């Protein structure tokens, strides 16, 4: 299990939070996820053998949110 934090562009609508969280919850390999609305960050704990950080980033970006960096 690894945990990565994705720095997002400024999140403006709290419904975005539900969107990203909902998507991650339905993604295979993602164990735990938390969207920090005020910090505009997404914290994801996932199984590297199932899904990569790049794929998660792509999925988030597909929802229409720009990822500025991964840590």
């Amino acid at each position, binding site marked *: 299990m690894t945990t990565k934090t994705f720095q997002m562009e400024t999140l403006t*609508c709290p419904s975005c939070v539900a969107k990203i969280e909902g998507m991650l919850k339905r993604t295979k390999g993602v164990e735990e996820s938390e969207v920090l609305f005020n910090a505009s960050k997404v914290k994801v704990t996932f199984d590297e053998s199932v899904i990569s950080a790049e794929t998660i980033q792509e999925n988030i970006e597909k929802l229409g949110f720009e990822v500025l960096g991964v840590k």
Partner: protein
Amino acid sequence: MLKITKGRRMILGGILVVLSFISHRLSGMEYTPVVITLMLATTIVAGTPIFRNAFQAARYRIIGIDALVTIAVTGAVIIGEFWEAAAVTFLFMLGDYLESRTLEKTRSSIKSLLDLAPDIARVRRDGKEVEISPDEVIQGDIVIVRPGEKISVDGTIIEGNAHINQAAITGESLPVSKSGDDTVFSGTIIESGYLLIRADKVGDDTTFARILQMVEEAQDKKAKTQKFLERFSRYYTPGIIVLSILLFLITKDLVLSLTLLVIACPGALVISTPVSIVAGIGNGARNGVLVKGGEIMEKLGTVKALAFDKTGTLTIGKPGVTKVKAYTMSEEELLRLAAIGESYSEHPLGRAIIQKAEELNLDINVVPEDAEIIMGQGLTFYFEGKKYLIGNRKLFQNAGIDTTEYEEHLQAEEEQGQTAVMVGDEERVLGIISLADIVREDAKKMIADLRAVGIRHIAMLTGDNKLAAKAIADKLGLDANYAELLPEDKVRILGELQEKYGRVAMIGDGINDAPALASADLGIAIGGAGTDVAMETADVVLMSAEIKKLAYAIGLSRATVRNMKQNIYFAIAVAGILLAGVLVKTVNLSIGMLIHELSVLLVIINAARLLRYKARSSNR
């Protein structure tokens, strides 16, 4: 697909919506082909991101505001309300843009903290000075810092002295003077001087990095109100869709149903709490007060009683000379003599006497001869050929000197919680020096400020003896004091206070009262910078030793809660008025969207006011 930036999309959408409006007017409010084309173009330009978001979210079975707007706009186009479609999409985009700009502002105080992070470090490697990134410094490196530069590590000074601005850590902008063996913090700035520092903690382990991390996490620890609102909105949005469909089935009025969809967006309500909290926490962080999250903010504002630890919290935690009584010489001469005698002493009382002599600029650069420390009694020494004694009754009795004459003064001092030390020669007592743990300068003012903000009960809990406790409690005018307590007693008394007064906060320096801090409704650690345990266990951390910030912290939390409530009530009122407006058909789609977006903006702007909150009571 062509990549269009948000800014360009805004401008293009803006031009198109104006052109649509003008051509609509020119054609006598008719929907001519040109007008329709312009309006559809506006809708597509402004709406594409909204529609895309809505569809992507729908794939994950999430229905958000985007979905409501998409349905409404599609509906508007189908029934030929092109102007409504164009206006609604444009307003939504504009609102979103303005919201992100203002939101960035409310979050700016935390961002500005991040900017305080050091960006370069100059270290000595292989005898040469090299500039590297602070992340590359390793423990034990020698870091060189010059005036105007930021210290990049937590470390110990090994050479030089400097005036250091520690605002990044403590919120206190007055520079402090530091020299050999003192500890310095990453993120602080050298105003004048030059330092060689041994790196003790680097990178993410530094106090500054940990504060940043905690502040970042704190802003997203949700308040109870917020959790409730989020649960509410999860059912609210789908609920609105169902309601709109029902409304259409009953009234057969499509415009009415679509309008309901748009105006029922819960934007202002959902955002009302987090924006207030982020602004409140940001304000606190900038002033050296770390409040760990929204729930703590709500609790801190409603504290009814406070329990203070004594040593290190209400007092400095180190003894100081409070009174000098001399019988045969001047007080200064007595103090000088005692300070010379204590030259080699490591005893805290001895250090306090030396410190007092230094403060008075007495010449104590003389060395005593044959100083002998007698454990539990004091010491004897020779100076200029004469033997002197400094110590308690036992020391003098063992030397055969009668002290009954001085008993009255000794006892009076002791009753006031003082430690009285006698200074004498081989024949008699020459004077008595009283020492006590010194009450913090700002403690009295803080107690007054706390009463001003309406704290009902202020108590002190201490492990110290009853006399010392009572002296300080009386001096500060506390409501109660509990002395000679063991850590478990403190926990028990906190329980009693909770029963009697309601919410109780415990304030300590976090070193020896971790159990009490944890068992109170709210644990507040003071002087937390640098002490890991305090920073981790407490709910609120006052970074500096300035205890008067407590009243500011309570005031800030109340202001934050008030702000949050204003936002919630306002959002509910707007939603209610809009709903009524729709039902009596005075609010149409575009006006509904305009008011909705305006209300969201107002909520954010109201929260931004918190950034300017200042402690009013402590300036009185």
